[in-house]
C-alpha cells in the first residue's frame, strides 16, 4: 500500500520532492478507487433472464379444506405421479404412461379446447418437483391454464403447523 511513496529525483511541479505536492493522501484515494473498481469487477455478473411457465392454481383449489368452494364449470382431469425404478410414471384415465404418452393422451382428451379443463395433480411424497413440473408443461402445451395439486394426506403429508 502507498504509505510512503516518493518520486525519485524531486517533484516535477516544485513541490519539494513529492509527486502531489503537500497532498500525499491522494495515493489513498487512488488505492480506494482501485478497491472499488476491483469489487465491481469481481462481483460483476451478466444479468441472467430466467424463463417462467405461467400457470394458475384453480380457485379454491390446492387448499386441503372441505369448506373451500372447488366447483368450477370446468371438467376436472386427475393425474397421479409416482416413481417406478427411478422413472416417473403418470396415471391418467386409469392407465399408466410415460411423459410422452401422457402428452399425447392429454392432447387427445382436450380436443374441445384446453380452457374447458382443469387439471389436479396428485403424487407420492418423494416424487421430485421436475416430474410434476413436466405435467404443468404438458398442460400448457394443450392450453390448459389451470393446474392445481391434490395435497398429500395422512402420514405422507408434511405438517403445515408446528
Amino acid at each position, binding site marked *: 500500500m502507498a504509505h510512503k511513496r516518493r518520486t525519485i529525483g524531486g517533484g516535477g511541479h516544485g513541490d519539494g520532492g513529492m509527486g502531489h505536492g503537500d497532498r500525499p493522501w491522494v495515493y489513498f484515494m487512488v488505492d480506494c478507487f482501485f478497491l472499488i473498481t476491483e469489487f465491481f469487477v469481481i462481483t460483476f455478473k451478466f444479468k441472467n433472464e430466467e424463463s417462467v411457465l405461467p400457470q394458475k*392454481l384453480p380457485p379454491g383449489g390446492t387448499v386441503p379444506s372441505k369448506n373451500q368452494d372447488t366447483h368450477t364449470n370446468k371438467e376436472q382431469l386427475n393425474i397421479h405421479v409416482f416413481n417406478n425404478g427411478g422413472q416417473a410414471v403418470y396415471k391418467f384415465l386409469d392407465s399408466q404412461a410415460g411423459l410422452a404418452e401422457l402428452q399425447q393422451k392429454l392432447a387427445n382428451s382436450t380436443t374441445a379446447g384446453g380452457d374447458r379443463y382443469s387439471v389436479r395433480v396428485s403424487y*407420492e411424497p418423494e416424487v421430485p418437483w421436475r416430474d410434476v413440473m413436466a405435467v404443468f408443461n404438458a398442460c400448457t402445451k394443450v392450453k390448459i391454464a389451470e393446474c392445481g395439486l391434490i395435497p398429500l394426506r395422512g402420514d405422507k403429508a408434511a405438517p403445515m403447523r408446528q
Partner: protein
Amino acid sequence: MSAKEDNTVEVDMVPLIDIISLLLMFLVMVGDMAKSTSSVQMKLPRADQAKNDKDVNTKNRIVVQLKKTATGQYKAIVENREYELVQGGNNSSLIKYLQEQITQRTAGGGVTLGPQGEVPFPVKLRIPEDAPMREAERVMMTLAQAKLVNVHYAVEAPKN
C-alpha cells in the same frame, strides 16, 4: 536537521478515514437494498413451453425461492430473508409475510380481486428440480391459502 528527517512525510489520515467510511457505507447500504430475485443457486426443471420473463406480467410480482438448509430442512427465501414454511415456528412464516404484502399492496385501492377473493399479483416460484413434492407442496399450499393463484414457475428453457 539531518537529510533523513527532511524526507519524512506527514500523512493526513482524515481524508483516508472519510473515504473508507464512505466506501463502507455504500457497500452496507447497497448490500441491504439489493433484493436479489435469484440469490439461491439451484438447478431448475426444464420446460419447453417456457416464456421469457419479459413476455409475462411482472407487476407487483413476489419471488419465492425454496432452499434446502444445512440441516436438510427446506425454507422459503423472499428478498434475501428466510421464512418458515410451517406456521408456529420461531421465525416469521411465509403465509404471514404474504398476507402482510397483500394487505400493503391492496391498501391503496385499484386492485380487483377475483370472484373467490383471488389476488391478481403474480408469484414467481423457484423450486429446485430435485426437491421432493412433500416440500414443494407446502409452498404451493401457502400460496393457495393466501389466494395467490397466478404462479410463474421458474424453469430452464431448452437450449436451441
